[in-house]
């Protein structure tokens, strides 16, 4: 179709080819070192798994329960990812492209569920909507005897989706915000209806953003332990946990390798869907927000409010309810809360954010600027740790620490390293997409003017990509704040954080004691979320 061709050409003009021919041995080396460091814990898994005999390994993998676990995990990943896209994309479009009342408020409220740790979210859901939860108590006098079951696949998908869709929401917003409005207008001039123009011009341009978010969601769903465990749904992480709890370390390692194989498949699928679209190359800061919703304003607001209430209102409500309760089941002994736990959490999270950002720069820069397979491999490699359950990573690092680097074992550097392994891809993703939006010719110009390549990077590229880098750091900060399993295994003895405290009191059944630190955790993470959202406006010019 002729119009389509023309639109494509406009798009291609806006896009600019990266210079992938220039070789960067130093950069490649650094990026390779980062990638090698973050996949190193897999070595321990291989060592452990190799102790399972081949026959036994095959036997374990074809057991009906093992197959069921695989099917369950895949179902969970697919449904949560689909649900997050269905929630996140329309909400991003609404908040960016429509004349929504209180748009800023909605943006913040809809992004915030990401700061709620999923184990707290799941627990809140069970106590609110479980068979004997708060809702059942409220409805009981009205004659409602039985609520639909919250446990199992449905509940797990619902809860997980509600707390991870912001990944898609944020990445889609980012690409919508950098979308060149002239493309849309061109399509309209060429006779497309709004809907057609959106589908043919906007959607392909924001697809990389959507898939980037969807990838984070998919891998999160695969590696999350808290939600499926609380919602009684059997997936890899739960089986792995059960094996570790019962000293089946070899079997657990084998299951972990299976999980990593699934991760590899997801990464391969994502690179097919997400990478053929010219990435974020389309660019332009002209935002038009005159898309009148008209009569649709009311249902749109109602839908957004519903999501905000379910994803933010319910967990916060339950936390405040716990805060207000007393009695031994809610306030226990031996667990005095100290505000230094909050400082400790913020401190390690900031350190993790800083180190992740620094480590992400070479990997992301190389991945954005070079089309070599090696660059892609290094970038993909950083996602391995993200899909590794925390307990697996934790024990791998216990072994590495106790065996090879005794001096850092149970010290902050090793803990921070664990966080970097877990969350590096969040920084890589955000940084990479901003590098893609910087015209390589700017760097070339700086080079011609006598800057070294590092100097050109520092003086030209870095200021331009700063918003993306800060956004990545904020994302790492808030996910580190709520990380539990690796923290429990690797924190320096005596160094308590908000999550280790929350775990301790919840383990002992003193839920009320968990409310205050959980609220502190949410509040501290919310600050970094606000920081992340302020970076959105400062798009690359």
């Amino acid at each position: 179709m002729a119009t389509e061709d023309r639109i494509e050409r406009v798009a291609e003009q806006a896009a600019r080819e990266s210079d992938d021919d220039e070789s960067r041995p130093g950069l490649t080396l650094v990026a390779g070192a980062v990638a090698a460091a973050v996949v190193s814990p897999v070595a321990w898994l291989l060592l452990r798994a190799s102790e399972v005999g081949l026959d036994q390994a095959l036997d374990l993998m074809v057991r009906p329960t093992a197959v069921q676990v695989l099917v369950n995990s895949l179902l969970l990943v697919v449904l949560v990812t689909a649900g997050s896209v269905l929630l996140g994309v329309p909400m991003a479009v609404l908040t960016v492209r429509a004349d929504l009342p209180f748009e800023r408020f909605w943006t913040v409220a809809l992004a915030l569920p990401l700061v709620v740790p999923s184990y707290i979210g799941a627990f809140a859901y069970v106590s609110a909507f479980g068979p004997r939860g708060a809702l059942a108590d409220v409805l009981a006098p009205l004659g409602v005897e039985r609520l639909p079951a919250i446990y199992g696949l449905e509940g797990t998908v619902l809860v997980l989706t509600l707390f991870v869709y912001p990944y898609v929401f944020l990445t889609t917003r980012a690409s919508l915000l950098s979308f060149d409005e002239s493309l849309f207008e061109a399509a309209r001039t060429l006779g497309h209806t709004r809907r057609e123009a959106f589908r043919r011009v906007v959607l392909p341009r924001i697809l990389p953003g959507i898939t980037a978010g969807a990838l984070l969601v998919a891998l999160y769903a695969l590696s999350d332990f808290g939600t499926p465990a609380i919602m009684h749904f059997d997936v890899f992480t739960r089986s792995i946990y059960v094996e570790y709890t019962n000293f089946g370390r070899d079997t657990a390692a084998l299951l972990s390798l299976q999980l990593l194989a699934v991760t590899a498949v997801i990464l391969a699928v994502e690179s097919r869907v997400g990478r053929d679209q010219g990435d974020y190359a389309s660019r332009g800061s002209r935002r038009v927000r005159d898309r009148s919703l008209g009569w649709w304003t009311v249902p749109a607001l109602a839908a957004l409010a519903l999501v905000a209430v379910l994803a933010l209102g319910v967990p916060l409500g339950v936390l405040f309810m716990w805060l207000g309760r007393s009695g031994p089941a809610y306030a226990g002994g031996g667990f005095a809360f100290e505000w230094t736990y909050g400082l400790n959490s913020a401190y390690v999270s900031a350190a993790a954010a800083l180190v992740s950002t620094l480590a992400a720069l070479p990997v992301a820069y190389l991945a954005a600027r070079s089309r070599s397979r090696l660059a892609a491999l290094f970038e993909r490699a950083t996602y391995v740790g993200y899909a590794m359950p925390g307990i697996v990573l934790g024990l791998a690092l216990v072994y590495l620490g106790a065996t090879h680097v005794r001096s850092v074992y149970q010290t902050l550097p090793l803990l921070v390293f664990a966080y970097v392994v877990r969350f590096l891809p969040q920084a890589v993703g955000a940084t990479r997409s901003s590098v893609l939006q910087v015209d390589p010719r700017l760097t070339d110009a700086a080079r011609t003017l006598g800057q070294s390549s590092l100097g050109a990077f520092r003086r030209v590229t870095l200021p331009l990509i700063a918003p993306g880098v800060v956004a990545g750091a904020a994302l790492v900060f808030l996910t580190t704040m709520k990380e539990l399993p690796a923290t429990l295994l690797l924190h320096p003895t005596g160094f308590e954080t908000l999550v280790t405290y929350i775990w301790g009191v919840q383990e002992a059944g003193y839920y009320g004691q968990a409310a205050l630190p959980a609220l502190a955790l949410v509040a501290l993470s919310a600050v970094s979320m606000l920081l992340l959202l302020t970076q959105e406006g400062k798009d690359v010019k």
Partner: protein
Amino acid sequence: MERDERDRIGGDGRIPSDGRQRTASRRRLLGTGAALGAAALAGCLGPFDGGDGGDGGTGTGSPELDTFRGSGAQVGGRPELSGVRIDDLPPLEGSLDVYIGGGEGGLYLDLLEILQDVYPDFGVVPRQAPSAQLANTIITEVEGGGSEADLFWSIDAGSLGAVADAGATVQLPADVVENVPENFRPDRQWVGVAGRARSIPYNTEQFSADEIPDDVMALATDDRFSGGLGWAPTYGAFQAFVTAMRVLEGRETTKEWLEGILDGGVTEYANEFLVSDAAAVGETGAGFANHYYALRVKAARPSAPVDLAFTRGDAGALINASAVGVVEGTGKRELAQRLVRHLLTVEAQEFFATRTFAYPMVEDHPPVGGLPTIDELETPDLDLAKLSDVEPTLELLQEVGVL
């Protein structure tokens, strides 16, 4: 002992277990809820709130026994206690790295706090995580060249069994553990310090005490319990219970039992506090849980219609232990052993009995008022070290579709 007499009789008019007039039933009531609530609350206040009840057995020298004791009706009725006291032991001096299993870990920390107050030169650096996770950590550390821990304090015998099987514990001297029953100190690789009994918390509005079978195996086939049971199959204590059943009754019988319970319809919970709570609110009629969770529920809601039943001589009457072991490779073996001795003193045992409602591990030290004594419970004859053999249990649970 006027006070003793008053407190010894619970609000329900029964005479708790230390009296000659024991009620015939093993299924003793929990004692009066209100008193329990007070006991639990007091136990939570901190190390020095002392107890308003019970002057019996107050130590002659320092430290005071009341410092270790909780308070409340059961505690008020405590008899004179005899045994090794802290004063009889050489002092604790120096610092120990202790890995402490989760759950009751918070209360154990209270005890260590008290000991550190008694001995100003003694310090504990605790590290808390789930017991199994710490056991995995210690095994992995020892494989990798040595553990950071001097002492491992696990909330279940299974975790310590796994560490001992991996050769990561060192044997305790015979005189340290001599007052503990032999099955709670296999080969002296570790020693139990406080016990937990398996029990059946049931809703008293749905069942009377007589309706709960003596035999845990019967629950799988009894129609009255169809659809009305609760359990927590991912919970370590439950898996230990199934392991015990497997060892005692054999794999096939255990499998039939699991299938029977499943066929009857059972509600799954994340932990056994929730199992006990579900029975208390009537969501289920009965469940499988450690004994102290129902006591905690009663403490939170004294009027909750929940009570405990104990089966006889089978896996349902298993007593598991919170246990300690000295970790291989420690440079502080002597000090670690001395701490173990302290955990088996009258004072520490009284702490476990009155503040965590646990069973004391030292022979002749009675549990708190409302609970039957260990000999009344008819515990199965079982080597607790076998509880660490959970792998086949997991396979079984997976095979029948419980996990």
